[in-house]
């Protein structure tokens, strides 16, 4: 049976400016600025991290575990998220969420957190050192950084089935959820030389399956670090997606992927379309073709466009929901919304792109890029057009173009402001967030699956949280009402 699709999005933000234009320093300033204005400075606990563990059970020669920079700023927030410096970028890892709409809300809370951190940081810096942040995935010069999605999957699904089932979606979903990009920046991209691409990230992918995330990036990442009970769960770590500015695009990106994973768990791999014979070529060539006409051959020799793949996958998800319900993903209302938006966006990009310019990022971006190009008679890939691409993702309200193009909303401003401080009630993030909010002085460190308390006497107490579906408000809310101190809470949990 499909397990509850516990979800999260990690976003590395692009960073410019700061003292000596050093991105690591600027990133630390951002993270510290936010941590210092908050109530807590609780640090992250690396004890249970094993990013080098491979889902295929073998670690290939030349595989590199990501660098972990323990000396850099690294904090746990009251909303259950992690805010830290990773690879010279400030990164927001959202708390664990129970539904795609909730994951979208906490992704937007992350934008708001970065915006606030930026404001605080820039108040302390001289103007010539002022920092700017971009929720995007590349610098236009061949350097890329990630927006990673995480999905809880039942351990008993074979990893090879995950690969076979999900590759068609990962190469083709950019048709509806690509962020768009002016020009190209890798050797293979420059050879194709598109004026505009569907995806910012696609041209950086060089392998189908692998452990790396910074070199020879794979479409399916095998990092097997469940941050939960490894006997029951795996965490699918998806690294091939774009950072979306459109909340509806985020909802559909997470929702479609979660529904297909649930369908895989309940119904097996047989109902999925055959993957492209050359997936790396497919993800790139689909991206290079905003006309959506390029086809690729699947392993059985059948030819499809990215749109065709999405159409088949939508039907598969729709049939799955009819037959099994979508409870593993969200309420029936929310699942219906995801399916409806996915369908409208898919039909829209083919038949009436303007009708979905308020939801599909690449269409919204292409619309203003082409509008500018014709107004000023610019050549394709002109610096002004690249500036529009970059500034679409600017975090600052007075600079952001995404905030000006009329993107449809999923959550209201008040809900987003609340999510900046409060954890989701629906996962173990609730327990983490409440502990960090109520007992900051008693917490030594925290990570995804445990919290370490110093209760003032005796040894430090580690509270494990190995099941991400537990620790919800429903399950542990009463504990916080009856135990008003950390000592009492830890005693109650140990009792």
């Amino acid at each position, binding site marked *: 049976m499909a397990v509850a699709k516990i979800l999260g999005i990690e976003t*590395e933000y*692009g*960073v*410019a400016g700061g003292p000596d234009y050093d*991105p*690591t320093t600027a990133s630390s300033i951002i993270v510290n600025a936010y941590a210092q204005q908050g109530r807590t400075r609780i640090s992250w606990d690396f004890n249970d991290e094993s990013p080098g563990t491979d889902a295929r059970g073998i670690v290939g020669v030349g595989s590199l575990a*990501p660098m972990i920079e323990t000396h850099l700023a690294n904090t746990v927030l009251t909303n259950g998220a992690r805010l830290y410096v*990773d*690879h*010279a*970028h400030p990164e927001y890892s959202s708390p664990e969420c129970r539904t795609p*709409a909730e994951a979208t809300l906490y992704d937007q809370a992350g934008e708001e957190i970065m915006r606030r951190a930026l404001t605080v940081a820039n108040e302390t810096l001289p103007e010539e050192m002022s920092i700017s942040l*971009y929720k995007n995935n*590349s*610098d*236009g010069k061949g*350097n*890329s*950084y*990630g927006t*990673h999605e995480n999905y809880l999957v039942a351990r008993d699904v074979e990893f090879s089935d995950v690969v076979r089932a999900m590759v068609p979606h990962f190469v083709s979903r950019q048709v509806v959820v690509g962020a768009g990009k002016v020009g190209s920046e890798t050797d293979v991209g420059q050879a194709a030389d598109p004026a505009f691409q569907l995806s910012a990230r696609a041209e950086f992918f060089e392998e189908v399956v692998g452990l790396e*995330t*910074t070199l020879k990036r794979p479409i399916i990442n095998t990092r097997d670090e469940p941050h939960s009970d490894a006997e029951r769960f795996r965490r699918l770590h998806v*690294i091939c997606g774009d950072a979306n500015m459109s909340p*509806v695009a985020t909802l559909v990106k997470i929702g479609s992927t979660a529904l297909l994973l649930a369908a895989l768990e309940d119904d097996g791999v047989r109902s999925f379309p055959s993957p492209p014979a050359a997936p790396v070529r497919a993800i790139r060539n689909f991206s290079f073709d905003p006309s959506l006409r390029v086809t690729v051959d699947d392993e059985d020799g059948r030819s499809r466009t990215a749109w065709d793949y999405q159409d088949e996958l939508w039907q598969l998800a729709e049939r799955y929901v009819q037959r099994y319900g979508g409870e593993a993903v969200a309420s029936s*209302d*929310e699942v*219906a*919304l995801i399916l409806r*938006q996915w369908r*409208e966006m898919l039909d829209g990009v083919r038949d*009436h*792109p*303007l*009708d979905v*310019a*308020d*939801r599909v990022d690449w269409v919204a971006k292409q*619309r*203003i890029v082409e*509008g*500018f190009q014709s*107004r000023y008679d610019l050549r394709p890939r*002109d*610096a*002004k057009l*690249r*500036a*529009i691409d*970059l*500034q679409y993702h600017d975090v600052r309200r*007075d*600079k952001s*173009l995404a905030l*000006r*193009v*009329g993107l*449809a*909303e*999923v959550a209201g401003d008040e809900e987003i402001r609340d999510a900046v401080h409060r954890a989701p009630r629906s996962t173990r993030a609730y327990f983490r967030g409440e502990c960090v909010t109520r007992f900051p002085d008693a917490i030594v460190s925290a990570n995804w699956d445990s919290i370490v308390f110093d209760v003032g006497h005796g040894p430090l107490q580690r509270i494990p949280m190995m099941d991400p579906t537990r620790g919800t408000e429903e399950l542990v809310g009463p504990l916080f009402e009856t135990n008003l101190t950390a000592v009492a809470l830890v005693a109650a949990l140990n009792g």
Partner: protein
Amino acid sequence: MSVVTKKGEQLKAELDDLLDEIDSVLEENAEEFVRNYVQKGGQ
């Protein structure tokens, strides 16, 4: 749950105003702005 969306016709009519607004907030020296944006690779 629902999402309030717009019609393509409405978006089309608004494009000129939108481009004016973008013109007013776009970084002045686009060439330099784009050239100076250099990142270290991440994950």
